[in-house]
Every structure is written in structure tokens, then in C-alpha cells.
């Protein structure tokens, strides 16, 4: 008998045993195959599938993510929906759950619900009350000044003071052009 016809992959978890199962998982937004032996399936707490890919994939993601599996969005276990991935640095939610670190500032938006849940559990609050960087204060001042100009322009127009309204409109345009530059 030609051994090649019966070639089996090595388990990708232990790297020692021959793989008995092949499962589909989502990794970094892509569907890929993962070969596992029976021992590693048991170690990862994955039951021999009696259902379809849905059950097995959900178990595998839960096993990899550990206790944080509850943070996985519903439907991710189906393997048919993407695990959230940050569009800026390509860190996935499972990367964050596994490693404990976010990849960039944009990850806070990408994983918004999960991040806020964890922050609230840890700190009992979601409102920063401490120091702010200088640029944040300046941005707030500019926003406040802009809003005031818009309000004043609308009031002047409503009171038929068109000369004042035009002057304010020009100031607003100058601020907008300055921001775009």
C-alpha cells in the first residue's frame, strides 16, 4: 500500500501526533484549516463534532480565547461572520482577547463594546476625569468658538442684520478653511 495515499498531516497544536481531525477556523479575518489530533482536541475541550462546523468552531474559538470567549460577538461561532478586526492595524478581537493588548488607538473604536465592558468592570467608571493633552483643550476651544460664531450668524440673519451675518459667515469660512489646511 502506498503510504502517500494515506498521508496525514501533523497536529498543528502539539506538532507531534498525526492529526485526526481537520477544522475550519477564522484567523485574522480569513478562513483557514487547522489539523488537530484527538489528544489536542480533548485538551482544547473540543468535543468530537456531532453537529456541523458551527459547534466545533464555537468551541475552538472559546478554547483559544479562554475565559474571554463570552466577549465574542454572537454569530462569530458560526464561522461565517468575521471576527472584528481593526482596519488600521489589523489586530483582531481574538488577538486582543488572547494577548491582552490592543494594536493602535483605532482598536478602541473597532472593539468598542468589548473594551467599554472591560473598562467598566475594572474601573467602575467610563468617564476620564484627569489631565488632558494640550491639543485636546485647544480643539475644544476652537469647537466652542466655531459654535458661537454659527449661533451668532444665525441670530443676526434672523434679525435681518445681514451685514453682521455676512461678516460672521466669512469668519466661519476662514476657520473651516484653516481646519482643512
Amino acid at each position: 500500500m502506498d503510504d502517500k495515499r494515506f498521508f496525514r498531516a501533523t497536529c498543528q497544536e502539539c506538532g507531534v501526533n498525526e492529526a485526526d481531525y481537520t477544522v475550519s477556523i477564522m484567523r485574522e479575518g480569513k478562513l483557514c484549516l487547522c489539523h488537530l489530533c484527538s489528544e489536542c482536541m480533548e485538551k482544547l475541550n473540543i468535543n468530537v463534532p456531532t453537529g456541523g462546523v458551527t459547534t466545533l468552531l464555537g468551541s475552538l474559538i472559546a478554547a483559544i480565547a479562554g475565559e474571554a470567549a463570552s466577549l465574542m460577538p454572537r454569530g462569530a461561532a458560526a464561522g461565517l461572520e468575521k471576527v472584528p478586526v481593526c482596519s488600521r492595524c489589523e489586530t483582531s478581537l481574538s488577538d486582543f482577547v488572547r494577548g491582552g493588548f490592543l494594536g493602535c488607538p483605532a482598536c478602541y473604536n473597532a472593539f468598542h463594546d468589548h473594551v467599554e465592558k472591560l473598562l467598566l468592570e475594572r474601573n467602575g467608571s467610563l468617564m476620564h476625569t484627569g489631565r488632558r493633552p494640550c491639543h485636546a483643550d485647544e480643539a475644544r476651544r476652537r469647537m466652542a468658538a466655531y459654535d458661537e460664531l454659527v449661533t451668532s450668524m444665525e441670530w443676526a440673519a434672523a434679525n435681518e442684520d445681514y451685514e453682521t451675518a455676512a461678516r460672521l459667515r466669512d469668519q466661519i469660512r476662514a476657520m473651516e478653511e484653516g481646519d482643512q489646511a
Partner: protein
Amino acid sequence: MRHDVVISSRVRLARNFEDISFHHSGMSADADACISRVASAIRGKAWAGYQLQCLRDMSDTACAVLCEDGLITPELLAAADNAAAMIHYEDACSVLVNGTDNLRIQALRPGLNLHSAAQECFRLEEAIARLAPMAFDEKLGYLTASLDDTGTGLRASLLLHLPMLGKSDKMAEVGRLVSAQGLNLRCAFGEGADAPGDVYHLSNLVTLGRTEEELIAAVTAMGIQLSDMECALRDEVLRSDRAALENAVNLAMGVMLTATSLSLQEFYQRWSKLRLGTALGILTMPGVDALLAQAQPAHLCAYAEEELDGKALDACRADRMRELAQR
């Protein structure tokens, strides 16, 4: 006296630039950009006395010495290929570049002095904020790689010597007191029930929802409370069995002056007795705190100017401690 219990104070701020990924994501272009940006700033007046060290240009021993001195962290050491540190050796302040976050600003002070450490950190933070916008959210505060730092990004910590309190039956109560304030108390060196050197690390856990001043005040207040508890137990022992305490201190000094081999574990035990003895006036040893760093492996290798381990390291430690104890 509280300063006899509080060995040192440290304040650390975690900061990231808005346009650079958190370093651990492995984008080396961003890592280089971060170092370049910081390097360009070091000529400014705010950075007088600071030196920029790229870890990849330093020997392993030199990096490990900085780590043992608390000027860099093990996490930065692990990322040495892309990491750097701006260090003010005299003031024991440093800015770590491309560790867990783009920047970690930290200042150390002897004794109980979180306020002074914080002021230096805030001064450096303002200088850095002029380089480029920081990663900051109106609601969540400063954005960091770990959610453990999100918000203020501030970790205020005290190193405490608690030889009496640590071995008393009050530690369960201490644990409850500490947790109730959103703080954390753990062994400073290693894990396990017995804190090596009876040294503990007290720090804030909460970083969001409180101001920096509130966090520093909470750690300071708890440090004072623990110091008072420790001092009360010391007074009790002095009243009840001063002779036994003096004997233990003198034995420890005897070992330091005569041992030809000293493991790190045994050093910690003897050092704790010497520090307690100094605090209680049983002996005079003004440089006792400095022994903690000098007994560490990298410091000994630097002292011996060669790589040491095992018995050779223990022998070197004994020689070094004999030399320092006699001063």
C-alpha cells in the same frame, strides 16, 4: 518613622502618539518613527541631563543593570531590538520608548514622595505632548495598549519594607483594606507567600474615573496606613523581646561581613534584618537600601566585569556585600 518603611516611590505615565501604533503590534516602521521623534526632542531645554540609549546598542549586562535599578522595565528589555530609553541617571527618571506603549514616563524618588515623582512625570509629559498629538479620547482619556492603563495612564507605586506586618496575622485585613481602595499589594521580588526581603509593592489598580491627584492621594494614604501598622508592630516587639531582635540583626551583620558564598534568597533574609536594625537604631548602615540593587545578578556581573552564574555569582555576591557592609 514612615520613611523607614517606605523604601521608594515611583510614578509612571503611559502615553502613545495618535499617529503611531502601539509598539507591540510589531510595526518596526512605527517603532523607528517613535524613536526619531523622541530623539529630535532631546536637544530641548526640558531634557537637560537626559541621555538617549538605544537598547540594541547596549550589552545585555548593561541593559539588565538598568532594569535592576528600575530605570527600565523587563517588558522594554524583551523588546530591546526596537526599544530605547531617555534616562536621567542622577534624578532616576526615564522615558521608555517602544515598550508596551510608545512611551512610558517614570520617576523614582527615595522614601515617600509620590508628589515629587508625579511633578517630574507631568513636566516631561508636557514636553512630549508638544512633539505630536497624543492618543486621547474625550470619554476614555489616554489610550494605551493595555486596558489596565486606559484613562490617566498613571501607576503610582510605593516599595514598602514590612518585616513585621508581612509575617503577622493582619495581612488578610490588609488585603481587604487595599482592595477596597482599588489598590494592589504584592511581593516586590518574586511570587509566593514569603516576600523576599519582606519588600512589598503597593500601587493603584484603577486608572479611569479618578484624577491623577486622587490616585496619588489614595496610594499615599494607604502607604501611610501600612507604615503606621508596621511601626506599631515594631514597637511591640521592641517592648516585648528587644534582645532577640538585636541578636537577629547582629547575626545578619555577621553573615554579611564573613560569608564567602551568599545566595540571593539568603541575601534577602539578611538584608531585611539589617534594614530593620538600621530603622530601629540597633546598628548604623546608611547605604542599606543601595544593597538591594548591588546584590542583583547583573550588578554583580558588571562589578566583576564578567558573566557569572551559580556558585561564582553567590561568591561574588558575598565579596561585594562584605565590601559594602564594611563601609
